[in-house]
C-alpha cells in the first residue's frame, strides 16, 4: 500500500506561507494514496504560475512546461504511453486564459488525463492582475477601475462541451477534494477539476468567507443528468456547490491504447511494402 510519505520530497516551496496550495498538494498526495499509485507511474505536467510549481513539491515524473501549454504536452505523453497516470496542474490564468484553446479541444479529443486547476481568480505569479475567472468589478493594480469582462464559467463550459468528467473542489475541504481528485484520476476520459483556491496575498475572498457558502453536492445529484449538472454549474447566488457535477462516458483518444514507447526502430518489411506504391 502506498503511504503519503512515498510522495514526499524535500524541495523548499516558493509559495507564500499560509497559501491554500499547500492543502491542495496534500489532497493530491492523498488521492494517490487512495489509488495506491506508485510515484513512477505518475506524470504531472504543469504550466507556469504559482500553482504549476506543485509537481516540484512531490515525488513523481514531472514535465513543467510553458504557460498555457500543459494540456498538449500531457496529451502527447498519454497518447504514446497509456500506462502512465497523467495529470496536469495549472492556475486559472494558465488553463483558462493562455491555454483556453487547448482546453476547448481537449473536451472534444477526450484523452484520459486529469486536469487540476487552482482557481484563485487572479494571476498570482505576475503579482495580482485579473484572470479569466475574476469577478466583475474587482479592482487590481492593473484593472484599477475594476474588471469589465464577464468571468468565465469553466464548469458550465465543460458540461456544454460534454466533457467526460466535471468537478469542483475547495481547498478548504481537503478530504472531499482528495476524493474528487481520486475519482477524476480513476475516470477513463478527460477530467476537469476546478478548485476554489483562496490566495492569501492577492485574493478577494479568503477561506473563512467561503466556509458557509460552500456545500457538497447532495447525494441525490446524478452526475449522469446533464441538465441538472448544467443548472448547478450555472447557478448564481450565495451557495457554491462542490463535488462531481457531470460524468459522461465516451470514447477516449487515442482509440487504441498501445504503449508506443516499447517498440524502437524501423520495420523494414513495412517500408518495403510502402515502397511498392511508388514504382
Amino acid at each position, binding site marked *: 500500500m502506498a503511504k503519503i510519505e512515498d510522495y514526499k520530497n524535500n524541495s523548499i516551496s516558493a509559495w507564500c506561507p499560509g497559501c491554500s496550495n499547500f492543502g491542495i498538494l496534500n489532497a493530491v498526495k492523498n488521492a494517490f494514496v487512495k489509488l495506491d499509485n506508485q510515484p513512477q507511474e505518475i506524470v504531472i505536467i504543469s504550466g507556469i504560475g504559482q500553482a504549476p510549481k506543485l509537481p516540484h513539491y512531490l515525488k513523481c515524473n514531472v514535465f*513543467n512546461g510553458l504557460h498555457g501549454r500543459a494540456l498538449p504536452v500531457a496529451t502527447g505523453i498519454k497518447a504514446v504511453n497509456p500506462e502512465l497516470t497523467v495529470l496536469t496542474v495549472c492556475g486559472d490564468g494558465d488553463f483558462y486564459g493562455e491555454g483556453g484553446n487547448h482546453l476547448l479541444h481537449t473536451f472534444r479529443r477526450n484523452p484520459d488525463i486529469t486536469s487540476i486547476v487552482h482557481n484563485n481568480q487572479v494571476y498570482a505569479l505576475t503579482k495580482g492582475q485579473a484572470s479569466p475567472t475574476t469577478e466583475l468589478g474587482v479592482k487590481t493594480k492593473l484593472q484599477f477601475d475594476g474588471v469589465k469582462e464577464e468571468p468565465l464559467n469553466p464548469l458550465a463550459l465543460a458540461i456544454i462541451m460534454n466533457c467526460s468528467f466535471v468537478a469542483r473542489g475547495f481547498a478548504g475541504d481537503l478530504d472531499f477534494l482528495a476524493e474528487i481528485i481520486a475519482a477524476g484520476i480513476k475516470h477513463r476520459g478527460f477530467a476537469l477539476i476546478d478548485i476554489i483556491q483562496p490566495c492569501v496575498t492577492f485574493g478577494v475572498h479568503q477561506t473563512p468567507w467561503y466556509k458557509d457558502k460552500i456545500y457538497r453536492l447532495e447525494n441525490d445529484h446524478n452526475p449522469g443528468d446533464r441538465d441538472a449538472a448544467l443548472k448547478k454549474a450555472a447557478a448564481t447566488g450565495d451557495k457554491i456547490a462542490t463535488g462531481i457535477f457531470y460524468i459522461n462516458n465516451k470514447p477516449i483518444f487515442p482509440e487504441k491504447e498501445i504503449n508506443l*514507447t516499447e517498440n524502437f526502430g524501423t520495420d523494414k518489411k513495412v517500408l518495403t511494402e510502402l515502397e511498392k506504391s511508388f*514504382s
Partner: protein
Amino acid sequence: MTEISIIICGQAGQGIQTVGYILAKAVLRSGYYIFAWQDFQSRIRGGESSFRLVISDQPVSSLPEKYDILISMDKSNTPFYAPLVKKSGIIIAENGSGENSVEAHFRKIAEDVGGNKIYANASAVGVVSGILGLDFKKIENVLKEEFSKKSDEVADKNIKVARYSCDETVKNNSKKFPPVKELKNPGRKILTGNESLALWAIAGGCRFMSAYPMTPSTGIITYLSETSHKTGILIEQAEDELAAINMALGASFAGVRSMTATSGGGFCLMVEGLSLAAMTETPVVIVLGQRPGPATGLPTRTEQGELNFALHSAHGEFPRFIFAPSNASDSFKIMIKAFEMSQKYRVPAIVLTDQYLADSYWTVENFNFENIKLNDCFSKPEDVAGEFKTYSITETGISERIKPGESENLVIADSDEHDQYGHITENLTIRKMMVEKRWRKLCLMTDEMNVPVPDGLYASEVVLVSWGSTGGIVSEVAGILSKKGTKTESINYTEIWPLKIPKEFFDKKRKFKIVVIENNFTGQFAGILEKEGVRIDGKINKYNGLPFTAEEITGEVEKTYGKN
C-alpha cells in the same frame, strides 16, 4: 540525350494532377527519369494551374523555360500557357487552332466512348500517350491501379477512353514526335518531396506526429495518416501549431521519436515550443515548409525565405540543427539524420523544405532500406547510478535519457532553469553551468555536419553555392557552364547548421568567384557566409514565387563571368 517536356494545364478541380501522375508513372516504367512540378493557385476550383512534366533518359530536377507539348484541359487556360511552348512544340486543346495545334475533344470523346464527361482526363492521357508513342500497356496498368480503387467499371471506362484517344491520335496526328523508346526499367520510383519526407520519417523511427494543416507541408501528415494502419504511427491533427509542437514534445518526453510539420506562419506559433524543446532538452524534428511571406503571402508558391528565421527563431540562446534536403533521394539521408542527431544531442532539428521540393515528383534510384541503422539513445534504467539526473553535467554536454514510468527512477523536466535533477532553481551558479552544458554540445554537433566539397574547387572559375531544393537546378547549371567553357563547380548545402565552410572559401587569394543562388530577396545564406568572413562575389535571387530554371541561372552567371 532524350528530353521531352510537357505542360498539362487546366482549372483547379479538373484533375490535371491525375493526368500528369498517370503519364509520369507510365513513363517511369518505360525506363525514364521524370521530374514534375505543380503550379497552382490558392483555390479549390477555377483559375490557372499546371502540372509540368519533364521526361529524360538522364536524371532531372529542373524545369525548362519552354516546353515541347501543352495539353490544355480548359479553354481559358490555353492562352495563358501557350507562350511557354517552344516554336517546334505542339498545343493540344479543344480550341486548338494554328499549325502547331492539335484539336482534341477530350470531353466529347469521354462522353461518346465512356458515357461521361468525367473521363476527359483519361482522354488527355490517351492523346499524350499517342503523341509520345508510349507502350499503351503501361498506361493501362497505371489506370487500372489508380481507378480500380473506385471500382472495376470506372477503371475499365478510363482505359477504354484512353485507348480510343491514343489510337485516334496515332492515326490522325500529322506532326510526328520522335517516339519515346522503351528503355530498361531498373526499378526506379517516383514520389513527391512530402511523401519522401514522411517515408523517411517512418524509416527514422518516428512514432508520433501532430500537426496543423498548412501548405506546403500538409502532405507529410496526410501520408503518415494514410499509412498509419501499416506503420502503427500515431498521428493527431492538433488544434493549432502551439498544440502540435507541445504534443510532439510530450510524446518525445515519454520516450518515442516524434515530429511536427508546418509552414512559416505556423512555425511562428511553434517557436515558443522550440525554445521549450531546447530548455527541456527534448528531441523533436520540425519540418518547416517555406512559402513566400510575409504573413499569408503566396500560399501555394515557392520561396526559401525562412533560413534566418529557422536559425534565429525562439527566445533564449541554444544550439539547434538545420537541414534542407534538395530532393526526394537525399531527404532519405537528411530525415534519418535529423531524427538521429536530435535524439543524440537532445536538441531540436529543423528540416527546411519549400513548395518546389514538397509538391514536385522526383525520381529515386533505390531506397536502400537495408542500410538504415538507428541508434537507441535511451539508457537502460538499470544502468542509471543513484537518483536519476535528467540534466547531468557531462563533458560533452549530453545527458543520458530514460523513459518515465519504465523504472523507479523519476524523470523530471523543466522549462524553468533547473538543477541536474530537473527541479526549478534560481541558483545562478547552476544557471551558468547549465548554459555552458547546453552549449558544450555545439562542438560535437558541428563535427557531425557534412558539406560536399568538390575536388576541383581551385581549378574552377566559378563556384555556385546553393542550399536545399535549388541544389539540383544549380548542379545542372554548373554542368552546362562547364560544357560551354566556364569551369564551374557547385556546392549545395543540405546540412546547414551548425555551419561548416570549406577552408578554400576563406582563402584571400582564391581566384574562383563564389556566386550564391537563392530563392529569396535578400540572399540569406550569402549573408550568413559573409558574416563568417567569406567574400561573396555574386548573388542570384528569385522571389516572384516561382522556382529557378537552369537557363535563367546560366544566363545570369554568363552575363558576369561567361566566356563569350
